[in-house]
């Protein structure tokens, strides 16, 4: 958070604020009118559900609150703060900075980016490239999405914007071949980081998941330690299906971390809380906008507070 902490926090809050308004209004509504009784707790649980926390997590958090034995005339802010603390406690272990990603002893750091279609993989790679470039690192991008029309162009545009080399081949090329070439190139050029894009794929498509396994297998012919990180890009607007997404990608390609995108929308991304609880995968960054500098570190307390409208 070295650069413009106010600026980005403000943006995160502005983004999350939009989403938490309703939740906060709701909680305000509950507590200003009523006492903290069973009905109120039930409503609180419902409100967490509307933030996509999921039935189970919402129930557990509500139970924790009820076990704290608040006085029946407790002010609402106190309950909210307690909830935020509980949520932050779940998120704390997974909130990691991008610098915490595994680094190789020598050679380029290889990061494979995976996810379902439209989750924001290519954009995330562009933003990552920008950030790394600003840190003075040399970056190579591999256009491994050889399926989607114009995906290669999209990555090339990001390459131009961020002044990084893009290794690409024609549409329909085996993505494993693109990844292989890119790794050879990155090693030969002594690049610091290689970011590999992949085609979006639904996690229940066995053949496409097998293709992803092949990319990894082929990369490992060059170096058995790569990829050093496999990032799953998750769209915050997705609901409970995020569970099966993480589960399947983790099972099949051993995902090592998450990037959560589109947190500047009205979706609250509460499913992250449930995911942190269940999988404990580090969240390395969040996307709060379309600009190149809209990739931000994930901060547990800020996220929890924004989710509950406690910022400022």
């Amino acid at each position: 958070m070295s650069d413009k902490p106010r600026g980005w926090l403000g943006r995160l809050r502005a983004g999350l604020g939009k989403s938490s308004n309703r939740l906060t209004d709701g909680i305000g509504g509950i507590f200003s009118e009523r006492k903290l009784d069973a009905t109120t707790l039930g409503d609180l649980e419902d409100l967490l559900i509307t933030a996509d926390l999921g039935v189970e997590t919402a129930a557990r958090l509500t139970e924790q609150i009820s076990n704290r034995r608040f006085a029946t005339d407790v002010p609402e802010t106190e309950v909210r703060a307690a909830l935020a603390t509980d949520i932050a406690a779940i998120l704390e272990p997974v909130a990691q900075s991008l610098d915490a990603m595994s680094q190789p002893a020598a050679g380029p750091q290889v990061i494979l980016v995976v996810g379902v279609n439209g989750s924001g993989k290519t954009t995330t790679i562009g933003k990552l490239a920008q950030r790394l470039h600003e840190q003075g690192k040399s970056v190579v991008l591999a256009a491994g999405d050889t399926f989607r029309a114009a995906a290669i162009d999209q990555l090339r545009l990001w390459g131009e914007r961020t002044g990084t080399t893009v290794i690409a081949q024609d549409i329909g090329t085996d993505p494993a071949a693109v990844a292989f070439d890119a790794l050879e190139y990155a090693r030969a050029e002594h690049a610091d980081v290689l970011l590999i894009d992949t085609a979006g794929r639904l996690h229940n498509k066995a053949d496409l998941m097998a293709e992803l396994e092949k990319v990894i297998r082929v990369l490992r012919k060059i170096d058995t330690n790569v990829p050093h990180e496999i990032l799953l890009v998750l769209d915050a607007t997705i609901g409970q299906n995020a569970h099966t997404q993480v589960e399947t990608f983790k099972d099949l390609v051993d995902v090592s971390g998450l990037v959560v995108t589109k947190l500047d929308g009205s979706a609250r991304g509460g499913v992250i809380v449930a995911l942190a609880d269940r999988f404990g995968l580090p969240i390395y960054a969040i996307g709060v906008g379309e600009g190149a500098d809209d990739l931000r570190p994930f901060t547990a307390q800020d996220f929890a507070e924004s989710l509950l409208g406690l910022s400022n």
Partner: protein
Amino acid sequence: MFDTLTERLGTVFDGLTRRGALSEADVTAALREVRVALLEADVALPVVRDLVAAVQEHAVGQEVLKSVTPGQTVIKIVHDHLVEALGSEAVEIDLNASTPVPMMVVGLQGSGKTTTTAKLAKQLVEKQGKKVLMASLDVRRPAAQEQLRVLGDQTLIPTLDIKLGEAPVDIARRAMDRGRREGYDVVLLDTAGRLAVDEEMMNEAVAIRDAVKPHETLLVADAMTGQDAVNTGHAFNEKVGLTGIVLTRIDGDARGGAALSMRAVTGCPIKLLGTGEKLDALETFHPDRVVGRILGMGDVVGLVERAQDVVEEEKARKVAAKLQKGEFDLEDMADQLRQVKKMGGLGGIMSMLPGVGKMQKQMAQHSIDDGMIRRQEAIILSMTPGERHRPALIKASRKRRIAAGSGTSVQEINKLLKQFQQMQTMMKKMKKMGGKMPPMGGGMPGGGLPPGALPPGFGR
């Protein structure tokens, strides 16, 4: 992680015997599970509340039909309510306006607008013989316009030439001009992806709408969308005005509760489903199918019907009796293989079952498929009646003969015999435990197949 609704209800109604009518307590208990199932399917909470209230009112006092459990009765009522809520009839894309008919495609980023635009264009061209022009108004995302052009090239559908730096409204006007000049029937406008809360982008969509007055404004939404579906649907409908919804990525394993939320909050019909990455993977919306998914029960209704068609009552009873006496032989196993085939093969059954994504993967890994069923049937048919009745007779030389006769290998015969043995052991165990086998073809336990209809080796 998600239990199917039928399983959940199974536990609620455990210990309840069948009786005349649903009591209030029955319904309340059942609806608690229905609520969880709907929420896990990402149906928005306000929508869930309304639904549960409506069902509660309707279900209390309903007769529990003979041969069905109270749980199934509640599910039926919920099912019917959901189908009604989703609009029971399919609504087509409306082309009934003067040409060129302007259509606008809106939605959040990454929901699949551009692909949907191309799919829709392709369908209009190929199925209805329309002349269609596509134009991308997305000047924000790098290469978005290029993406539509590439899709146009693939489908041989013309796209508006790209002029760098042109404003979206101007692109829209230019598209309509060209549409008029060159006699197009439909002009499809693919707008920039936006987040519902983005005022600026929303205003842009409104400006485009005012400039071209679209006859159809379709909201493209991802079937995986969470609770935010109501906000998205509401925002687009209120600001831009919608005429229909296209639900994409229905080929994923999301339960698709967003369909219900969006329909409820916009009142717009769901017109199309995006069912895959191929450009012809666009289907008309079938409420029943989506309802089955939302409830996490697959198309169990259809499966029961199919099972009833195939499984002859009399035969089923005989097999059940045999099972209980532990007299199940290879002849019966062959019968069951045939039943599976008649029900549309494994693929047919699996596609109708809830929560089978994982199981299908496991099956693929172990190369369990319809071919295997065919081979197993061939193996059994290559045996003598004596062998079928007393598999213990089958030793090395008989195995070789059977393998030659069925065009398989001795290993496959060993595998089949082992499976058969496992089935027998399992049945003996169940008998010991005093577990009663429910009659087949009748009541469906826990949303599964009638136990007898499961192919060998699939029993737990």
